[in-house]
């Protein structure tokens, strides 16, 4: 469901970006266009990532790299050409990437990460940096990772031979537009008065067969066009009458309820059955249930951010608090979230359908207006302009209120310092002892950790970069992997896949394969887009792809 698309004929930008606006709408696109991505390392992987962000139109990018273009670059990086040989990689990559989209502003800095961190610390200060997101492509030294500001979303990328991985780190990430398959919430067991009375009105003569026009009976045509939601509401009421005021709850009862509906279907009609009744029966198992607050939304509403609002609190948390107040107020939601308001298509006459749709729509609008009132009150109490959050934003939030997400990304030091925290240790050990441990991609991660230690101690030299050092480098990589395993408390040592992965990483000598670089470019760009647009659900927090078995693994490390 796209957020908002203009209704008239498209302008040139809408035409150019049509295929993506259908995913993330104008909301997402506006956010994308204000992002400024800093890429450290103009490797093939780095350039492929930027390509996939420049095409959909991020605002700006800056390529940071201190190397000169060599012959080897041309064999793997599409964004360096023969004319680039001997020139700075940052400059040439920025130029060739910039050609992809004239709407995007490209910049470059001929320097490296460690140097910049000491000479231009302002680039890394949340308040002074021009960058909104950091993309770091390995190699980078571990101590510097620990200095990165946690306020700026950061993407750490490895691409070695057939293996690639991404670690996402960001401040608390909140999502309204998660794009679930459906926002539908029918409230069949929690109908409000307008819905109940509509169901009663529309079914008073349901059981009476019309003989002649105007005899008060229902014709077959009308009977076959009563929307299934109305049918379900009516038969649920009938069921309640005969079952001591209770709704069908168990699987068995729902089965019996389906029979009840079936028995009321008119069968002496053309075709021998009625489509609306069949739709009603098919909807029983999925829709006859209490409206519940999802565990993800509970997480949001119970977050301390909801309780401790300040002048600076994001709109997200203010509206979340207003929704929480709505939910808990017996005069408002009384235990239920604001209604999303959408209903699925169903067999019905146009009028009958639109009227029913309006009952849901008006209720949703009414719920949102109560949430809006709460929002205005909260804003006033914080001494903020009570109208500073537009109604559109509140309504969008209410529609998605049962599908909210917040992700607490673990900070990089908890994973990368010499003493990783308990969570990290547990997560790695759990993956190493799971039922699929033999083939698990956690081994790939461990090999990459050894690589990370290796490049840190050699100041950026990749293991296996020359034939002469192949053997000693393998031994050193093995030692580093074993050391890491000891740090996380895994005493059994490297398994078979772990050893293979070490050999595989050393064999690549730090080299990229174009296909894997390109694949990494796609994976990373998808996640960057999800973080920037605050739509869809980004990975939390690590994804590893193995190009030999064509599989991915995701871990929270």
């Amino acid at each position, binding site marked *: 469901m796209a957020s908002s698309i203009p209704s008239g004929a498209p302008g040139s930008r809408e035409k150019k970006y049509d295929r993506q606006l259908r995913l993330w709408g104008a909301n997402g696109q506006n956010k994308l266009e204000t992002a400024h991505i800093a890429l450290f390392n103009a490797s093939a992987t780095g350039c492929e990532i930027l390509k996939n962000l420049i095409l959909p139109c991020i605002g700006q990018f800056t390529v940071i790299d201190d190397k000169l273009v060599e012959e080897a670059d041309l064999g793997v990086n599409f964004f360096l050409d023969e004319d680039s040989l001997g020139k700075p990689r940052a400059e040439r990559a920025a130029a060739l990437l910039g050609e992809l989209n004239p709407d995007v502003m490209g910049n470059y800095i001929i320097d490296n990460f460690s140097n910049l961190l000491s000479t231009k610390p302002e680039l890394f200060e949340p308040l002074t940096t021009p960058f909104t997101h950091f993309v770091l492509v390995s190699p980078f030294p571990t101590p510097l990772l620990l200095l990165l500001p946690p306020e700026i979303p950061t993407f750490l990328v490895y691409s070695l031979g*057939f293996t690639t991985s991404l670690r996402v780190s960001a401040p608390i990430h909140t999502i309204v537009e998660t794009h679930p398959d459906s926002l539908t919430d029918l409230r069949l067991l929690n109908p409000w008065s307008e819905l109940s009375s509509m169901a009663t009105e529309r079914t008073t003569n349901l059981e009476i067969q019309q003989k002649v026009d105007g005899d008060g009976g229902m014709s077959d045509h009308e009977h076959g066009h009563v929307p299934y939601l109305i049918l379900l509401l009516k038969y649920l009421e009938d069921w309640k009458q005969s079952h001591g005021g209770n709704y069908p709850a168990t699987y068995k009862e729902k089965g019996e309820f389906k029979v009840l509906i079936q028995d009321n279907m008119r069968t002496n009609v053309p075709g021998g059955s009625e489509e609306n009744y069949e739709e009603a029966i098919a909807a029983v198992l999925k829709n006859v249930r209490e409206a519940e607050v999802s565990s993800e939304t509970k997480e949001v509403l119970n977050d301390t951010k909801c309780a401790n609002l300040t002048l600076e609190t994001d709109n997200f948390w203010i509206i979340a608090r207003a929704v929480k107040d709505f939910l808990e107020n017996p005069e408002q939601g009384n235990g239920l979230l604001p209604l999303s308001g959408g209903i699925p298509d169903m067999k019905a006459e146009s009028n009958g359908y639109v009227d029913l749709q309006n009952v849901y729509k008006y209720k949703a609008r009414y719920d949102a207006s109560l949430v809006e009132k709460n929002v205005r009150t909260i804003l006033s109490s914080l001494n903020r302009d009570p109208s500073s959050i537009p109604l559109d934003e509140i309504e969008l939030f209410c529609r998605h209120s049962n599908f909210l997400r917040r992700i607490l990304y673990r900070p990089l030091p908890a994973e990368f310092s010499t003493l990783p925290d308990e969570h990290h240790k547990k997560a790695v050990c759990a993956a190493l002892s799971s039922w699929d441990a033999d083939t698990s991609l956690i081994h790939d991660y461990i090999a990459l950790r050894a690589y990370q230690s290796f490049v840190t101690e050699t100041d950026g030299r990749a293991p296996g970069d020359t034939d002469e050092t192949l053997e000693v480098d393998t031994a050193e990589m093995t030692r580093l992997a074993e050391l890491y395993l000891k740090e996380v408390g895994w005493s059994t040592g490297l398994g078979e896949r772990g050893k293979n992965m070490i050999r595989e990483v050393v064999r690549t000598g730090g080299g990229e394969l174009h296909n894997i670089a390109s694949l990494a*470019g796609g994976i990373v760009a998808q996640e960057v887009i999800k973080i920037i647009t605050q739509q869809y659900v980004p990975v939390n927090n690590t994804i590893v792809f193995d190009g030999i078995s064509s599989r991915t693994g995701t871990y929270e490390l």
Partner: protein
Amino acid sequence: MLQSGAGGLGCEILKNLALSGFKDIHVIDMDTIDVSNLNRQFLFRQADVGKPKATVAAEFVMKRVKGVKITPYYGAIQDKGPDYYMQFQLVICGLDSVEARRWINATLVEMVDPQNPESLKPLIDGGTEGFKGQSRVILPTLGSCYECSLDMLTPRTAVPMCTLASIPRQPAHCIEWASILEWPRVMGDKKLDNDDPEHIQWLYEKALERAREFNISGVTYSMTQGVVKNIIPAIASTNAIIAASCCNEALKIVTSSNPYLNNYMMYIGDEGVYTHTFAHEQKDGCPVCGNMATDFHAKADWTLDEFIERLKEKPDVQIKKPTLTTERRKLYYAGPPQLNELTKPNLDKRLKDLLDSGEEVAITDPGLPFSLRLNVIFS
């Protein structure tokens, strides 16, 4: 190496193949460049709009990557026959239609000669939608083919004509009414061109009018275009993932460096990242690679016309204007006119008067790139 499709996946594939060291690549595509391609088809610029995709893509990559020879062909894959396809070692596809995929799949399966190992051309196929996509390796006759998995496609549920004609409920119903019913009524024989902005504008206005009449909200120009052209959202990053996966498999197959994908990978990026890598099974009695007539149960009392209608409902068949024959007679010819005249009366005859139970019926159709064989069994 043959690459079919030079669109979203195609641009990526061409770049990847060139940088993977493939020296001789042929690329086929029948489309020209549209402005809505530019958000992902990175070998094209604003100034290229209107030019053939295959040619522009080939020129760009040859200029950027030294030592690669790329031969473009601006036309349909169906223009070429087995002789043409026989010259390649492998075929890699980034196509946007089910028809084209079925055609190339059936052609490559048909080409396999058990006496000649060279005749088996691995087919690598990719497809994307939004943040999701899939790549797969097809070894014609040896494993699951494209046709084997046709029932995995989500069927596009057609809205009943009476809903469009008299009881619309959704904005899409109003748009389909405008394009399917109102356009031919008002415009007569004038053909609707989905790429003509004036035509879309006309449909949009008609749909909007109808929506107002029925109090339906939500008709927009963008939605009109989406419904009429069946637009699938597409972004650069997903294309990059799937195209790279396809080329990675191509490289593994050609160099025998590592085991290749057996045989299907789905990538789902909407909610976190989830991949499903599995072996899709060859389908018993697949009409393309199964090489056997499949059983089809029918009532002896059905008319031939009814029989054809039932066939059209089968999701794994997908026929539109079929021609039916048996060993001993012509049952029905959709064309040419003389044969159609001659065989039309059969449509009203009952199956039992035309066939014996268990008799084999061969079905050909413009939508079918092969001849479907059915044993019609009376039940």
